[in-house]
């Protein structure tokens, strides 16, 4: 019984720390706009090649999203905005499994069609967003 509570409180501590770190990061993204602020890391790919990668614009999009500006966030990185519910859901399940020692699985994540489809979209988006004509520019 003693051991049970030790495990419990250790898990609680780790989750609290993780939540604090996440909260801190989100606070930074709320108060500082990565567009025109050198505090933020530019994407190494974009920095060296001048082309956008599938993740470029994620930081600026986070800033806009935290300010409730969904359309602008979407225009900065639609892939991130579309992926965000999946990411939140996936991590939610992971946290749940961690707390309750359960083995819940996200069915979608085991579908080959989904996995290859998602990454085909990511690769296609990588190509298409670097085209220099409307609406991709």
């Amino acid at each position, binding site marked *: 019984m003693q051991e049970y509570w030790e495990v419990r409180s250790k898990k609680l501590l780790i989750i609290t720390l993780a939540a604090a770190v996440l909260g801190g990061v989100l606070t930074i993204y709320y108060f500082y706009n990565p567009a025109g602020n*050198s505090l933020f*890391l*530019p*994407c*190494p*790919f974009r920095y060296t090649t001048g082309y956008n*990668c*599938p*993740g*470029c614009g*994620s930081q600026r999009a986070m800033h806009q999203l935290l300010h409730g500006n969904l359309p602008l966030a979407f225009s900065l990185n639609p*892939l*991130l905005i579309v*992926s965000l519910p*999946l*990411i939140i859901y*996936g*991590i939610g399940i*992971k946290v749940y*499994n961690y707390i309750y020692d359960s*083995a*819940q*699985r*996200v069915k979608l*994540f*085991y579908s*080959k069609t989904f*996995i*290859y489809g*998602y*990454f085909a979209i*990511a690769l296609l988006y990588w190509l298409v967003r670097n085209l220099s004509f409307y609406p991709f520019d």
Partner: protein
Amino acid sequence: METSNMPAGSPPDNNLVWAIITTVICCLPLGIVAIIKSTKVKELWMSGDQAGAQKAADDAKKYAIWGMVIGGVFWILYIILMVAGVLGSAF
């Protein structure tokens, strides 16, 4: 899909969330490797290779986390160079 040698219970967590995060946010090739490992988890599990499935799941996690670590290292290097640049130009 039900096969006789399929083990009972849930397959190991294939850690696809980390792979997605690494690919979308850090845009590193390691994310892609993690995805390929993730897809192998269910395949191996279905064929009855529990140890192999667990290993693929662990590998997926490992590659995704390494992708994030490399991203983090870039960030730290960038901040060091930036601070050094600011200090350098001050004199």
